[in-house]
């Protein structure tokens, strides 16, 4: 039985469904909203509904967008011959923050993860194949996570694209910048050695 009045308990329950929010954080947010003016709560509710209604997936790259195609896909100043494949819109943002990459993205919305029931069918691969048909794309950079799931996804895609003759590259993985080699585990060290380059 909940210690809170029903509407408050319901708010806490809904907040708890959000990623990274546990019971305590949910309570803190709920109490904060109740203490604040009604306008704050209304603005937040309206913003959530507005975003949910207006934001959809770009039909080309599957990134979140208000207009289709998205800002990046319709930017003629960007290099349309290079596409970077990522697992989530969040990952595209990470690459974008480097300000070094000027190509386009393709968001898979996941990675091959059998235990979660995610196979190739569940990934956004169909419109990737569509995008590659006209021959404009010359290189694909696979920037899935350096995890078992991300690695399996990268290999799966590279095999899928082999017949198309497009250059497929994989982002380097290895020892994180600012860390000490002695703390690297064997898997990480092995990846670092595999990904070595000429100086």
């Amino acid at each position, binding site marked *: 039985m909940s210690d809170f009045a029903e509407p408050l308990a319901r708010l806490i329950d809904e907040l708890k469904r959000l990623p990274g929010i546990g019971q305590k954080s949910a309570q803190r947010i709920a109490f904060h909203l109740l203490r604040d003016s009604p306008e704050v709560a209304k603005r937040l509710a309206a913003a959530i509904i507005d975003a949910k209604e207006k934001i959809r997936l770009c039909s080309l790259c599957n990134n979140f967008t208000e207009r289709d195609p998205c800002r990046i896909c319709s930017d003629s100043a960007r290099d349309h011959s290079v596409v970077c494949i990522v697992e989530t819109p969040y990952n595209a943002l990470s690459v974008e923050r480097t300000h070094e990459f000027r190509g386009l993205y393709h968001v898979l919305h996941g990675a091959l993860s*059998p235990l979660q029931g995610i196979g190739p*069918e569940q990934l956004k691969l169909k419109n990737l194949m569509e995008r590659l048909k006209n021959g404009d794309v010359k290189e694909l950079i696979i920037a899935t996570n350096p995890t078992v799931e991300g690695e399996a996804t990268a290999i799966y895609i590279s095999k899928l694209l082999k017949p198309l003759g497009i250059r497929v590259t994989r982002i380097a993985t290895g020892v994180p910048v600012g860390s000490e080699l002695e703390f690297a585990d064997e898997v990480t060290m092995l990846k670092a050695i595999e990904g070595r380059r000429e100086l």
Partner: protein
Amino acid sequence: MPLREGEAIVLRTYRLGEADKIVSLFTRPFGRLRAAAAGAQRARTRYGGTLEPLSYIRVWFYERENRDLVRINSTELVESFFDMQKDYRMQVAAQYVAEVAERFFPERQANDRAFRLLLGVLRAMKRSGELGAPLLYFDYWLLRLEGFLPDLTRCAACGRVLDDGGYYGPASEGLCCADCRTPTTPRAVAASALELAESARGVTPEQWLGTSKPAAVCAAARRFLEDLIEAHAEKKLITRELLDAGV
């Protein structure tokens, strides 16, 4: 709280909050445990790649009073099964093994034979690059260790030798012969498949892989044993569907 130590196989991980992970471990000395790994989601995690699915590790952890979840202090990689799972088929197969282990092995119950079975099967897959034969070995021994393996040689109803194969249904505990079959036992399994499954008895995974197995017979035997496993799991196995779809 004392620091405990032991060998373990990582079955799977879940994200916990923004930075941490919950790790489902099958440890050799303590059985299956759920453990919190602080900071494991960060790029510069001190666990490195040790908590990836099916890693064979040595783990040091603290018990926490009145909590199911133990707290991982540190880990060390003993053997990696990371590269093997780059191949999607192998990833599905390896994670099928993990899913079955999670479903069948109760928490905090050491089971050394089960631990050795898991490790042996993973190594067999890694070494051979094959999955049909290693999974058949796993299916057979899992059912045996758990006490769910029926007599593969005789009819459960009349005792007749099943030299023409057997019949079973979703709820049947054993096999029956053609004379004893009923509408509740619509599925057939060939004598060759039963014989192949039975030959996993008394051999190590290495010996088992030493001789080649006809793929079709292997698949037929697996279908039967995995039906039994799924029936005893009392829930659909997510990975089995993917195994059947793409493997």
